[in-house]
Every structure is written in structure tokens, then in C-alpha cells.
């Protein structure tokens, strides 16, 4: 049955590597494991068992009931999904076109413009809250989901990433397409974008995670409960400066917020790896 394999002695370095990675994975998954365990733990304030990773013998759903009861999660999920996908859709278009322009087009002041673009990466977002809010209000977008999305439609990081990705693609492909009579937009859409897929996928993950978790800007620009995103909904029942914490409810709520992202990431990761393997950029 099995082909006779050359009996190889396990490489000690490889073993060490596996042990090390397992240890890292354990450390990284501890908060997650705690969150799941704590969310089923009865509200005890036992302190000692609160920090424990071992589940209780009598798990309870009370924390989940309270978390679900504390906010309109269906609405929060929908709003957050709209915001993340809305931002991503526009970003994919803008960063592809801008990245292409910086990578391939020759124009006066290209370098200066590019560095000016990169400077945006240095700005701490809270500095822009007031100017952005003024603009949003003038546009009549205050308290809308569009307002949550608008400041992120262009991404300096994305443009930088796409420029670098495009520059790694040999010009031969484009030249062949041009020889066949393709227009510039056909070159971008049919040749460059498929070849740059790993870059786009990587950017998409970063973008969705960032905006899914974003708190401050949505809090600034949203006033109605109907327009709240997940992070704000979560904070509205778990944040308390002057009192103790209901850790179980916080754990359950946090799990509800993180679950879709974790699921999507687990599914997406395969695609992510595949896109690196088969994209043909070698």
C-alpha cells in the first residue's frame, strides 16, 4: 500500500520548531479560550475561578441571554457588515487604480505625490476627528452609515501595497496584452488585477478586521441606535468606569462580536494561502 518511504530520523530542529510554534499558539489562543469558558460561567465573582481556564461543572447560558438581550445584535451585525463591505468595495477600486498610476504611469511630480500620500500613514486618526466631522456635517451625512465609511474610501496603506505589488509583476504580461490591442483599463482589469490577487486579498483582510473593530470614529459620527455598529453596541452594555465588571457578560458579548470575523477568517485563510500558491507570480 504505502510506498516504502525512506525512514528519516525526525529533524531535531524541526521538532524544536513545532514545540515552539505550539507554545506560541497556546499563548495566543488563551484569551480566546478564556473568553469562551468565562461566557458559560455562572456570575459568581469568586475571583479565583473567574480567571480559571477550566470550565465549570454547571455551565450557564445566562450571560449569553443577558448579552443578546442588551443590544439588537441583528441590526448591529447588519450595520457592521454594510460598513466593512462598503469600505472594502470602494477601497479595492481606488487602491487598484491609484496603485497602478503610481506603479506604471509616468507623470510629473509622481514621486512627490506618492510621498505625500505616504505621509498620511503618519497621522494618528484622532487628530482628524474634528476636520472629518466638519466635512461630514457639511455634506449632510451626519449620523449615517455612509459617514462611517467615507473617510476610509481611499487608503494610503492600500495604495502603497498595490503599487509595490504591481511593480513586482513583469511588464511582459502587459506588453503582450497591449500588442493584442488591449486598452489600459483592460490591461488593469484582465492582466494586473488577477496577478495582484494576493496583495488584494491581504489588504482586504487587514481592512475588514480594522473596520470591524473600529470604535472611536463610529462613536463620533453615529447618534441613532439604529445606526450603531457592533463595537458601540458592545461598549454600551459592557463599559463601566466606576464599577466592577460582569466578566461573563463581557465575554459572551465579545464572542458575539468576534465570532463572524473568526469564522470568516478561518474560511478565508485557505483562500489566502491558495492565492499565494496559484497566482502565478513566481
Amino acid at each position: 500500500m504505502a510506498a516504502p518511504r525512506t525512514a528519516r530520523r525526525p529533524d531535531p530542529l524541526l521538532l524544536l520548531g513545532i514545540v515552539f510554534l505550539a507554545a506560541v499558539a497556546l499563548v495566543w489562543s488563551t484569551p480566546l479560550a478564556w473568553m469562551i469558558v468565562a461566557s458559560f460561567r455562572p456570575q459568581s465573582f469568586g475571583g479565583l475561578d473567574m480567571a480559571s481556564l477550566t470550565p465549570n461543572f454547571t455551565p450557564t447560558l445566562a450571560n449569553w441571554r443577558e448579552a443578546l438581550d442588551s443590544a439588537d445584535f441583528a441590526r448591529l451585525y447588519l450595520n457592521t457588515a454594510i460598513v466593512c463591505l462598503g469600505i472594502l468595495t470602494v477601497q479595492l477600486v481606488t487602491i487598484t487604480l491609484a496603485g497602478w498610476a503610481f506603479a506604471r504611469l509616468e507623470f510629473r511630480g509622481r514621486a512627490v505625490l506618492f510621498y505625500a500620500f505616504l505621509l498620511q500613514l503618519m497621522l494618528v486618526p484622532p487628530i482628524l476627528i474634528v476636520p472629518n466631522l466638519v466635512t461630514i456635517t457639511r455634506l449632510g451625512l451626519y449620523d449615517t452609515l455612509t459617514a462611517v465609511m467615507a473617510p476610509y474610501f481611499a487608503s494610503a496603506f492600500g495604495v502603497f501595497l498595490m503599487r509595490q505589488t504591481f511593480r513586482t509583476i513583469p511588464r511582459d504580461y502587459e506588453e503582450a496584452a497591449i500588442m493584442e490591442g488591449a486598452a489600459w483599463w483592460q490591461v488593469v482589469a484582465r492582466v494586473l488585477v488577477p496577478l495582484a490577487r494576493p496583495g488584494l486579498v491581504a489588504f482586504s483582510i487587514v481592512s475588514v478586521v480594522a473596520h470591524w473593530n473600529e470604535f472611536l470614529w463610529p462613536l463620533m459620527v453615529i447618534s441613532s441606535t439604529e445606526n450603531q455598529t457592533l463595537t458601540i453596541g458592545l461598549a454600551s452594555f459592557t463599559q463601566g468606569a466606576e464599577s466592577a465588571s460582569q466578566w461573563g457578560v463581557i465575554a459572551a458579548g465579545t464572542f458575539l462580536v468576534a465570532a463572524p470575523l473568526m469564522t470568516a477568517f478561518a474560511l478565508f485563510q485557505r483562500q489566502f494561502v491558495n492565492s499565494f500558491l496559484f497566482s502565478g507570480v513566481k
Partner: protein
Amino acid sequence: MHPLSKVAAATAFALSLGLGSAEAATEIEMFFPVPVEGKLAKEMQALMERFNASHPDIRAKAVYTGSYDETNLKTHAAIKAGRPPAAVIMSANFVLEYQIGDEIEALDPLIEADGKTPDAFMGQFWPALHGNARFAGKVWAVPFHNSTPLLYYNTDHFKEAGLDPSKPPETWVEWSDAAKKLTRRDGDKTTRWGLMLPSNYDYLGWTMTALDMSNGGQYYNTEYGGEVYYDQPSMRGALTFVDNLVHRDKVMPEGTTDGKVVSTAFFAGEASMVVLSTGSLSFIRENMKQGYAVAFVPANIRNAVAIGGASLMMPKGLTEEQKKASWILINWLTSPEVSGHWSRFTGYFAPNRAAYDLPEMKTFLAENPDAKVGVDQLAYARSWFATYSTVAVRKALEDEVQAVLSGKKKPLEALKAAQAKAEEIMSPYVAATAMNLPK
């Protein structure tokens, strides 16, 4: 005119025009932070529904705005963007900055339009709350929910350590003696701390204010926002006291202890005495399994603590209708009935004194005598630290106190550094005010 008759008049006017009240309703927004645990955001929405149902000509919307600091940020941003909310529940010590920045309305004209004097109006509220609401000659805010720090102690531990649970420590000597008796060690490891104080940002400033004031200090100049007294004997004594508890007596944990850790340790029986806000009282009452009691913060020179909590203020830039509607909402939220209801729900004390004359409140206090301690301590409470750039000036002290708590600095050098930093932060304001002299 009485607010109610105003409402009646406005309603009558709307009806006389034959308009549906929904169309004539003035829409207003109120920003509110969630400073305590529980379904407070939901309760606030329920309150708004009650208000709207009883005031058909106003449609008020409560907007959740995060913590006190985030609410401050959002309010500043919204005012600058030209979308001021009609009312904000603002951390009581941030109001001064809005007054300095000319961003809020003085409430005196509205009070006088109701036929009251500002003195009579403020007279509704506990005297300790006046300083953060009425200053620079005018009324700028209306107290909404307030707190003071309290000493919570585990009565089971007291009995076990041979202390009388009905006699909580009243002086710092008794306090540190009790802490020593209550601390349990297992070799080098402390298994139970005699005392824990919250020392995360914001809470630490408040804790230090309480100790400084109990040591005869004033912390800041209540009349002028450009002065603090960080390196004075009262504060030096307070910080040395804390430093001794941590490093000499080892009855308090070293380093920065978050307020949430403090309350969790108290529930777990890992801390025998803690200082926490009255705002935590409902939560502790519902969840504490062992016996507990509350007491005044012990005194070295005198009993004194600073108030905490939030007040309602009205940003500038509203229409006349919005101003009127906002004023009706503010008065409704601070009325004895609503104030009392909110107090029982949250654990904060009701700023409106008349709330305690209502039968529901009398029954509640009879059933929960611990809630009365916070109210009694009010007689010794003082204004809350408020200066130009309050948060940064407070942080100047907190950073240095944290350095002492973690053993990196000694009290005197830490407080000198804190004072210098605070003065640097306030220097633009000082230059424009107290040092702005005839040329």
C-alpha cells in the same frame, strides 16, 4: 412661567393650529455616557420614552457616547462641526473647560424666565455639588447623578481579624492598623490585601483628591482654573501615606491597580478594604456573597472627599425652540422623582435633595442602610478637581503617583515633577489670565 404651564401653552398652540403634535415636535438630542455597569443604556432609552410620551411637543433622543472621556471628545467635535447636542451629561469637572472655551450657555436667563432666582434654583441640590455647577458668577450645569468615594469593607474579615465590624476605621492610624491586621501572607506571598485603592487613570486622580482633602488639602484652586497644589504638605502627606502602605507595611499591592481589579478582588475576598465610588454600590450589593459594610473615607485632619459624577449642560448654537425643549428635558431629568428613580437604579446619589423626601426613597433607604452612608458623607464633600485642561493636569499627577506606587520614585520628587508638569500645561491659560497684567 412654570415649565409645565409652558408645555401646556405650547401644546395648546400646536393644537390650535390643528397640527399633529408629531409634526410640531421640536427634535433634540442628548449625549449620555455610561459610567456604571448594567443595563444603563437601556434604562436611559426607557426614560426618554417616558419623557417623550409626557411631552408631545418635544422629541428627545438619547445618544450613547461611550465613556466620560469619549463623551467629552464627541461633544467638542460635534460643537465644532456645528451639530451641537441640545444637552449633554458631562463629567461634572469638565464643565469648566466648556465655560472657558465659551461653548456652553449660562443657564441664569432660563432659570429667571421660570420665575426663579439662581440661588433658589441651586438650592434644590446638595451644597457639595454647587462648586462644579455654578462658578464665575453664573450657573453652567445642573447636577444629574453624583458620587463620592466610599470605604467598603468585608465584615467577615473584620471579625476574623478581631476587629469590630460595627466600628470601621475613622482615622488614618486606625485605617493602617486595620489594614495590617487584615493582611494575610503565605511566606513571601500575600494571599489577602488589607487595603486596595483604584489607581488607573481618572480613578487615581479622584482617590488622591480624597486622601489629600482628608489630610486638610484642597488639591486645586476652586476659584481659579490655573492653580493646583500638588507639592504642598497635605498632598505630600497623602502620597507618603500611600507609599508606606505599599512599600513599608506591604498591606497594599505594588503598581497600578485598575478599579475593576479592585472590585473583583473585593468580591473574591482577596482584599478586605477597598475605596470605590458610591456608583458601585448597587452592583456590590447585588453580587457580594460575604458580609460587607460601607463607611466614610477615614480622615487624618478632617473628613473630606471630592464629589464625582455628571451634570447636564447646554451647548451654544441651538435654536430658541431647541433651547426651550432642552431646558424642559434638563429640569425633568433632575426633578426629585426622576432623580430618585435613577439613583435607585444606578447607585449614584440623587443630587436633588427633595428626592429623599419621596416615599419610594424613604422605603429604599430603610431597606438599604448602606445607601444612606453615601448621602451622609455628602455633608463633608467638596467640589471636584476642575482646571484649565483638566485631564492633562490630572494626568500629570497620576503619572507621578503611579511611579511612586511601582517603587520608581519617592513621594517628594514625584510631586515636584507633577507640579512642574501641571504648571507647564496650564501656562497658556495663566499667561492669558492671572499673569495678564497692565502694561
